[in-house]
């Protein structure tokens, strides 16, 4: 009798495993950015949304939207009627480093970020039923994200995605480009600039540098300069951010760059080339210092190949003239340097995360799932 029960139990487990195997798998690479969330999936869906989540302020706005939560551009557009949140800051969850994860503040922040991840999953699955699908994802994290922050990312994905791994964002970029060795990745986001040298192994702390003067910092500097130089003009950070994204440059071009800003209600053109250039330059010193440090501390025999292979990724890599600026600096400080911009700066991280997700053997995912179950049991 006991033998039969054991046999039945084993059979049930085997059937469950077989059923899992029969499930289709959807792989997603996710870049949870301070400014934008980007996904790349192996069903062909690739998209991004600004990292904003908005909740209607009252019954009237709830009625107007016909929804309980608004995302991305829509949320920014209707921000007056919404309680608007940007869950990530400096490349990590806001309040992600609070010592006690039982605080209301932390739980609220996780809940908002979870809502955003759910929305990304809906975009990835195109709203289709996923009950017979295993949704796997690799989440990109800042290069030097703390253990607490990485665990926070797992908490956010918990219950939304079936299997999740976290990987360093610049490593994802390198993996996507198949640059496993002798490459230096510079990933310029809104919250952080991540530098990472690849030399055939998973980058350690010594191989990575994260600086906090990134895209948002450029916006702030630009905003402050405009306030100082054009005190009569009315504008918001959001307005100058949008303008910066379309016009950012640090070259010595002679053409003026004009922005139309209201002065006493009347749209007025302002030449902001000087301010924009100065703001964009603000992030360069830390980047080039990081490049110098990572190259100078690398094995001298391989420094040349590292100099040959500096890769510029992320939205900030679109600043016109940045590539040349870094190359000029490397020539002056290091003798030589060749910088290459990735083909798809916005998607480079998510693409790499997707490749990681797809390449990861099923057995690895099984191990992870067992460990995750164990963690839940202990909790």
């Amino acid at each position, binding site marked *: 009798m006991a033998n039969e029960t054991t046999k039945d139990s084993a059979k049930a487990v085997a059937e469950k495993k077989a059923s899992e195997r029969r499930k289709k798998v959807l792989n997603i690479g996710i870049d949870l950015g301070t400014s934008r969330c980007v996904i790349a999936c192996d069903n062909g869906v690739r998209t991004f*949304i600004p990292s904003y989540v908005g909740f209607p302020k009252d019954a009237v706005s709830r009625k107007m939207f016909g929804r309980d939560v608004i995302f991305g*551009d829509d949320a920014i557009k209707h921000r007056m009627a919404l309680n608007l949140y940007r869950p990530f800051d400096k490349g990590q969850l806001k309040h992600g480093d609070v010592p006690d994860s039982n605080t209301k503040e932390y739980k609220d922040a996780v809940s908002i970020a979870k809502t955003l991840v759910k929305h990304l999953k809906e975009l990835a699955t195109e709203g289709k039923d996923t009950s017979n699908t295993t949704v796997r994802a690799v989440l990109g994290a800042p290069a030097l994200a703390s253990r607490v922050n990485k665990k926070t990312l797992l908490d956010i994905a918990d219950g939304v995605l079936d299997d999740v791994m976290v990987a360093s964002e610049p490593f994802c970029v390198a993996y996507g480009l198949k640059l496993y060795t002798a490459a230096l990745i510079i990933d310029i986001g809104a919250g952080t600039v991540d530098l990472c040298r690849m030399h055939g192994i998973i980058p350690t702390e010594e191989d990575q540098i994260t600086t906090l003067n990134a895209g948002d910092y450029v916006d702030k500097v630009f905003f402050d300069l405009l306030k100082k130089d054009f005190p009569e003009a009315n504008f918001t950070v959001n307005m100058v951010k949008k303008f910066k994204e379309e016009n950012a440059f640090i070259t010595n071009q002679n053409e003026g760059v004009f922005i139309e800003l209201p002065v006493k209600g009347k749209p007025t053109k302002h030449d902001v080339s000087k301010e924009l250039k100065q703001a964009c330059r603000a992030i360069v010193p830390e980047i080039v210092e990081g490049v110098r440090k990572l190259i100078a501390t690398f094995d001298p025999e391989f420094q040349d190949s590292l100099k040959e292979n500096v890769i510029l990724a992320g939205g900030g890599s679109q600043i016109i003239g940045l590539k040349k600026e870094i190359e000029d600096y490397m020539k002056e400080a290091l003798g030589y340097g060749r910088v290459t911009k990735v*083909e798809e700066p916005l998607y480079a991280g998510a693409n790499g995360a997707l490749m990681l997700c797809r390449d990861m053997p099923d057995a690895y995912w099984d191990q992870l799932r067992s460990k995750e179950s164990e963690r839940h049991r202990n909790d």
Partner: protein
Amino acid sequence: MLGKIGKYTAATLEYGTLKTASLLQKGVNIVSGTVTGTAFRSNRQPDDEHNGHNRHKLSETLKIVPRLTVEAGKYTYAVIEYAGQKIYVFLKKGGLSTGIDGSKSTGLESSLANIGESLGNFFRGIANLRLPIGNNIVTVDPQLSERVSHIEAMLTSARLEDRLDGIEAILRNIEQNGIATTGSPYKDIDKPEVKDDAKMLLASILQTNLDLRS
């Protein structure tokens, strides 16, 4: 915008203000008339405003009508840019009659990355010179000739011919075997072959993630 330079015919197409496409045909002549070509949908669509997101799916295409007619050539080539943030590169054997189908082109992206950059510069060069739009073949003035020589030299140095030969081999393979990366969601796709160096990295990533759950 239309131009004929040496053995290349180039055209840039605009749809709204958000998207530009560039077409290049090798060894073809421009003739007058208007035909329908195929370009790719922008990742910002009117209905997206309601949904609150921008999305782009490679398999969906948008028909546009460029003012361009070409005789059948060896390749049709397209580059799509969106607000300077995203570039897709597509190449298809044959002339416009073949059309370029985004859903059949995703597998080519990475292999065409470098060539895309070279040709992207090529098209930017043409745009800066403001070649006239119209049905006539463009007359190249001396200043333009100089620029054209530079472009020709650039294309030669990019070893375009060699790369196209290589790409042709890939295309042949795709035509014979199809593309594995598109189609309906959740399609069963065999796990890709992972090289040993990548396997080590994957094992390390796994270990890091197991540690995170300890």
